[in-house]
């Protein structure tokens, strides 16, 4: 299994980014990097000025290429990310968290990356945990999900949010046949097979959570949760606030209901061969 994947990695085009930007802060090759195919860290960011730079530097310190998808931030998010050593793709206007990830997936595919690790730009996700996600992928998982609930150190949240998490964790567990404790975690790793399965236009625009997990599991990919450390967000806007929680529940239930009968979406972001 892993052997096939690595052979694939060797055959594909090499990423253009590594080497193009010599960076003094970048450490000598981190040991695990020799064992994994070209891997890109995707950081979707909206209005994360003052926070995104530290996140990019921490991820770069893990020896990985970092892409920040600036989702039309009116502030200096894009500039800070670039200054910290990330490649920045900038949406002309705000398109949503899911679309930012989706653009990142397409960047990864266009530039020959095999694996994708994704983390939030607000400092919630600890870059030191990235090797754990990579290790899960190395062990044969297609989707590694960083869960804050597995080692009992989850940062506190509201009562309502905890309830909703529990409900959707149950749904995700039933739908995927894999124990899922943190279905809303954006701290994930994707193998080449998972990456190929999320580039279609139907990828959810706002909340790619439980529905994506179930969809990927239904298409035969192996999911695995990995315990990770998460911090309190360092300010900024949470996606789950106020009436959005109600919309989230409605949207997720409708999507899940239609999942088995829905038509597949085309992929119009990828370039067709001319």
């Amino acid at each position, binding site marked *: 299994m892993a052997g096939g994947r690595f052979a694939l990695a060797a055959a594909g085009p090499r990423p253009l980014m590594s080497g*193009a930007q010599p960076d003094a802060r970048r450490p000598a090759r981190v040991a695990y990097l020799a064992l994994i195919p070209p891997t890109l860290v995707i950081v979707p960011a909206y*209005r994360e000025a003052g926070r995104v730079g530290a996140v990019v530097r921490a991820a770069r310190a893990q020896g990985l290429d970092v892409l920040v998808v600036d989702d039309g931030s*009116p502030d200096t998010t894009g500039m800070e990310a670039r200054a910290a050593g990330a490649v*920045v793709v900038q949406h002309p206007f705000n398109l*949503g968290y899911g*679309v*930012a990830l989706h*653009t990142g997936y*397409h960047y990864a595919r266009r530039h020959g990356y095999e694996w994708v690790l994704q983390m939030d730009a607000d400092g919630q996700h600890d870059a030191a945990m990235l090797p754990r996600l990579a290790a899960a992928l190395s062990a044969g998982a297609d989707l590694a999900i960083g869960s804050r609930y597995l080692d009992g150190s989850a940062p506190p949240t509201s009562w309502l949010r905890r309830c909703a998490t529990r409900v959707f964790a149950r749904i995700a567990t039933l739908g995927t046949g894999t124990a899922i404790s943190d279905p809303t975690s954006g701290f994930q790793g994707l193998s080449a097979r998972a990456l190929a399965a999320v580039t279609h*236009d139907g990828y959810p625009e706002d909340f790619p959570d439980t529905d994506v997990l179930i969809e990927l599991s239904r298409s035969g990919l192996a999911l695995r949760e990995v315990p990770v450390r998460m911090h309190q967000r360092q300010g900024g806007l949470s996606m789950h606030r106020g009436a959005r929680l109600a919309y989230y529940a409605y949207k997720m239930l409708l999507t899940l209901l239609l999942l088995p009968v829905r038509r597949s979406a085309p992929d119009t972001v990828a370039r067709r061969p001319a």
Partner: protein
Amino acid sequence: MNALALLLALQQPQLTPLPGRQQFLAIVLASTILVLVLELVRRRKLREEYAWVWIAVSLVLFAIAADEDVIVAISRLIGSATGTSTLFFGAILFLLLLALQFSVRLSRLTHRSRTLAQRMALLEQELDRLRAQAPPSSEVVPMRPPTAVAAPNPPRAKDGSA
């Protein structure tokens, strides 16, 4: 006894043709719609693609106004008690379907603009990278370097999420 009378009344509704004044109003309305739609197409503010629906609406109005028996016949067919309720029913049904159709079109347009924005963003990055690599040439008009501060977007009234 009362119930029986009511039942009989329902089965044989009193359908009267539109009075002359209503007929006149319908014709005025139909003409106004027709003229307005044609004028909007002339000014290129309305696409032919959408105009035909409104032209059809005005033609139907003309037909109803011209022949009083049309509305009576339709009322009998669908079993409505009065011509007025037939008109209301038809209008509401039409608007409902129209709104649904617009929602579908809006979804498609949203999807297309989203895809365009994504491809544009990827292209822009690619262009910046190539320009940064390319040797300086007099033929290439220099673009604003990627590190320059872009004009900030106008503040939004509503916050979207990242």
